[in-house]
């Protein structure tokens, strides 16, 4: 009985000693290897993704992996399963291992700030892939798609197709998780494109998907029921297309371009589903994030920071719009087309 009672107390004492031993230093530990001089040894880069649950993230992960391999850099990987607390621990684990750089896909713009600070304190350069951090004194570089401009251009193309029909279209926009700065940018880009074209486009529904396919399907189905004559749909991410097409099919509205009743469809990302829909003639256009460009720029920014070069806080990926008119020409650059192969 005595042993059982005293054991937890012993453990408390042990951990307390560990705590006191480790807390005296401002840097985590003298055991953390300082970043190596360039060219001294094979570099280790920690890649921490929030999730690999969509094709885009998998494509991004593979693109970074390929880019690092091309440069003979060892990649250490960690996926947080959408848990910001776990991701913080994973980043700190990378720091403990003395990685030479960190590429981070944060869950959101705010929870990544302690992670960036931890990397800054350890003097390890950190680059954010595809999602920037909020304004902060913590130092990092973010490589992101120009969500607003690319969305605006994509929707502008869709509006041009709408104008050719000679009729006014009722429109639906499927929004992402508005806690995600990318979703906000795409929403704003949509609104930018629609502004001034009210004679052609009337937005009757804004569906909040929170990046959830089930929510998207329910929202689109409800919107189609409330407005059966919706003929223009933009989605903030192509990964929601299965939900949208399912709702359209249930309503008997899923028609190819040129068929009576075709709903002008547009998206963002450029995944394999969008590529197939383009090839099959259902999808009018999608804004493609150039994942290869973003991966290359992320790795380069990291290496430049290691060498002490000046690197901006933001590197924009302009992306491109792929549509029926340039499909063959642009498909090789579309990451979703390459997955299909």
């Amino acid at each position: 009985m005595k042993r059982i009672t005293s054991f937890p107390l012993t453990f408390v004492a042990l951990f307390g000693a560990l705590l006191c031993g480790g807390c005296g230093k401002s840097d985590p530990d003298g055991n953390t290897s300082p970043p190596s001089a360039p060219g001294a040894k094979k570099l280790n880069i920690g890649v921490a993704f929030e999730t690999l649950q969509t094709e885009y993230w998998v494509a991004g992960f593979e693109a970074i992996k390929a880019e690092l391999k091309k440069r003979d850099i060892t990649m250490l990987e960690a996926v947080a399963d959408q848990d910001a607390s776990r991701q913080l621990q994973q980043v700190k684990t990378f720091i403990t291992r003395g990685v030479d750089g960190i590429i981070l896909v944060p869950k959101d713009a705010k929870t990544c700030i302690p992670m960036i600070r931890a990397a800054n304190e350890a003097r390890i350069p950190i680059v954010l892939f595809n999602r920037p951090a909020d304004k902060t004194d913590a130092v990092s570089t973010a490589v992101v798609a120009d969500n607003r401009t690319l969305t605006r251009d994509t929707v502008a193309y869709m509006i041009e197709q709408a104008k050719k029909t000679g009729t006014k279209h009722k429109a639906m926009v499927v929004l992402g998780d508005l806690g995600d700065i990318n979703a906000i940018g795409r929403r704003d880009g949509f609104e930018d494109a629609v502004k001034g074209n009210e004679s052609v486009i009337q937005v009757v529904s804004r569906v909040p998907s929170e990046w959830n396919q089930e929510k998207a399907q329910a929202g689109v189905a409800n919107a189609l029921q409330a407005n059966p004559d919706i003929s223009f749909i933009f989605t903030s991410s192509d990964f929601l297309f299965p939900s949208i097409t399912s709702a359209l099919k249930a309503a008997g509205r899923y028609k190819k371009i040129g068929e009576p009743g075709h709903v002008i469809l547009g998206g963002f990302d450029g995944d394999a589903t969008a590529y197939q829909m383009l090839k099959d003639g259902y999808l009018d256009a999608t804004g493609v994030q150039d994942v290869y460009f973003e991966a290359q720029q992320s790795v380069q920014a990291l290496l430049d920071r290691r060498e002490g070069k000046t690197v901006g806080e933001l590197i924009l990926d302009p992306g491109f719009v792929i549509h029926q008119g340039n499909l063959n020409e642009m498909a090789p650059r579309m990451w979703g087309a390459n997955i299909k192969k």
Partner: protein
Amino acid sequence: MAATPVTNLESRTTTRLRSLCLSEYLVLALTVLMFAALAPFTPGLGTSANLLNALGYLLPLFIVAVGMTLVMITGGIDLSVTSIIALTSVVGAKLMTSDGGGTPAIIGVLVMLALGAGLGALNGAVITMLRLPAFIVTLASMMFLSGFAVWLTQSKNIYGLPGSFLALGQRLPIAFALTAALGVAAHLMLRRTVFGRWLYAVGQNATAAHISGVPVRAMTFAAYVASGLCAALASVMLTGRLETGSPVLGREILLDIIGATVVGGTSLFGGMGKIAWTFFGVLFLTVLDNALNLLSLSQFSITITKGAVILFAAVLDAVRNRFVVGRS
């Protein structure tokens, strides 16, 4: 009919197996063995920086697991703990930032704790008064509270928390002291008080406990209040650590919480469990997770491994029950 004689070898084997399964320190021994086995080829595993990092992750997990232990001792389960973490996170953050008029951190913390306890009380009240299964009640409250947290913030995180609040999650000595105080208090309560004995009695046989004069409903209710309170305390640390009030905070750690509690030896069938065991279980899962991350295994491998470990622990729990109380 004469019983078939049991050989000495069978008897020794059975005795050793029983001792192993019933040993209080089985999980701790496995943790130490695992650590020793992995340390030589897991870079950084034994460094104090890594251990401190792992400790930072372990502390809030242990706090929630303490509450879960009390609930599981009574034979119940609380699936709503992660939603309580999220809701208390955003409510506290709203109060302490300009949204809520910049309430002092101490008030914010007290409100979070009170809210957590209150939500636990709601669970306990529904379970005891309506006599509904704990699984269903806490599953429903998990969904409701989770949705409410998202609605309250419109999916947005809340930033700009006061430094004094952030210290509760970021300063390891403070977080450790809070966790140790809670752990020791819960341990002593279970081991040294009538309240603790009543909790075990309820879990072992609620009917017999009732006949013996144990206030079964009150004990069950109290366990859920404690669980909600522990979840709120963990939320204080997690929110401080991430510097953000988040409506999805802790969403993915429910399996880790339940798994660590079961791995430690607290029985899913009720009536058996100790805070020390839960600590060993949390330690085991944290070391496992940490080591697998340092080995740079894919997340899928890590998830599969942890799932297998938790399944093994559940099987071991069933075997232990068979040895201890002859439950089938």
